[in-house]
């Protein structure tokens, strides 16, 4: 029967190999993703884009870098709300309710233009 240390050291060795593996993968995949990154940078330059489309719910989250001086996030992204009241007021109910609804693709299903 193998010694417990053999098992433990093999496990650690395996995990270290895994770590080296992911480090190697991250280096290799940077090269693999380079074409996509370059194409995206070219798209940004061509369309003059300024922001990522990560948070599309409000103008100051869709374009945080372009938000006007008095909108939330402007002074600093950490300043989500300017005043303490912002943390006490719940978001309007209709906003949170809408998010929960699921949407079905409607193209081709409607009889009249929406």
């Amino acid at each position, binding site marked *: 029967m193998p*010694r*417990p*240390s053999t*098992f*433990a*050291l093999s496990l*650690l060795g395996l*995990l*270290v190999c*895994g*770590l080296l593996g*992911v*480090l190697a*993968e*991250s280096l290799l*995949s*940077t090269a693999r993703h380079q074409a*996509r*990154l370059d*194409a*995206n*940078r*070219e*798209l*940004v*330059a061509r*369309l*003059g*884009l*300024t*922001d*990522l*489309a*990560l*948070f*599309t*719910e*409000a103008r100051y*989250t*869709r*374009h*945080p*870098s*372009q938000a*006007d*001086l*008095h909108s939330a996030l402007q002074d*600093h*992204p*950490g300043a989500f709300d300017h005043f303490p009241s912002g943390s006490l007021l719940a*978001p309007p109910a209709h906003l*949170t309710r*809408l998010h929960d*609804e699921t*949407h079905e*693709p*409607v*193209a*081709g299903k409607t009889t009249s233009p*929406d």
Partner: protein
Amino acid sequence: MSPWLEKQRHLIDFTLASLARRKTRNLGLLVVYTLLVFVLASLTLYSNALRSEAKYVLAGSPEVILQRMVAGRHDLIPPGYLEKIGRIRGVQKKEGRLWGYYYDPVLKANYTFMARPASEVADGSIMVGEALARERGLARNNTISFRSYSGKLFSFEVAAVLSPDSELLSADLVLLSEGDFRRFFEYPDGHYTDIALSVANPQEVRNVAAKLTATLPDSRPILREEVQRTYQSVFDWREGILLTVLAGAILAFAILAWEKASGLSAEEKREIGILKAIGWETGDVIRMKIWEGLLISLTAFLGGFLAAYVHVFHFGAAVFTPVLKGWSVLYPKFALVPAVDGLQVATLFFFTVFPYTAAILVPIWRAAITDPDAVMR
């Protein structure tokens, strides 16, 4: 095998046997420890990858965006404004941009409409982002209608769906011709949303911004470096929110690990006493406990980190998506470039492995130097 190595292996054998005697407790600790490293590492990897991606792609954005402010709010650029900028030294190109938001009641989502020259998008056609196309079930040559803010209905033919690879930038984008944009939003002729300026020399950008503010006091220049800085901070902040939420869990683990590592149970004390009584040296006891700390913390660190890597880069950080998604209806599907920062790995290692192993040492040393007879009683 050298005697030193053989001795270490025997110490590891003995440590594992000792850990196995309190199997449930030690396994529980290992699982919690691994989970903690997993969450912290996922957070770090995800934020770092997003930051790197934003930095790289947004390096192509315009050097300066000029907005006009009226009563503290972003307002339209009126006719003649572009001419007022005149010929500022260093400005290579100035271009009025047309873009705005449209709320689609069908999806209950916001789209970003952006005008493009007729050479790119013909009148009556649009190009849409992949996320929008997916949610609305659109494909090339399909027709879609939008009701404008004035109540009129406009139909557009989808000329193209933007590449899914660009979804992080174009998820909600609708590109249409300038004429269509002006008709749809009833934008007055000669007005623009803002102005994009190209500056050839990066050293000149700040001077150009200062000259713009002097020439047009109601304007607000936004520099590319500010855009990039915004994104660095946005992800710091999101990361910070998650860390705040996790703070309780981290503290709970710290207490658990401290209690486990520093407070020796009566059984452990007795074990040390017996070892000393049968001839173990203080150094051997300490070495055995260091092995215990290293085996647990290294396994937890490596296991947690590898799981985090797979979670973030192969499963799209499924655990964090609800937090990052916020209230967005349209959320892009994107694969991040695996960016592992050596310094980050080292920091995580230092803050997870080192404290646990160090916490073990003091009480063990104290127990190991006391008289075996006193410890065993």
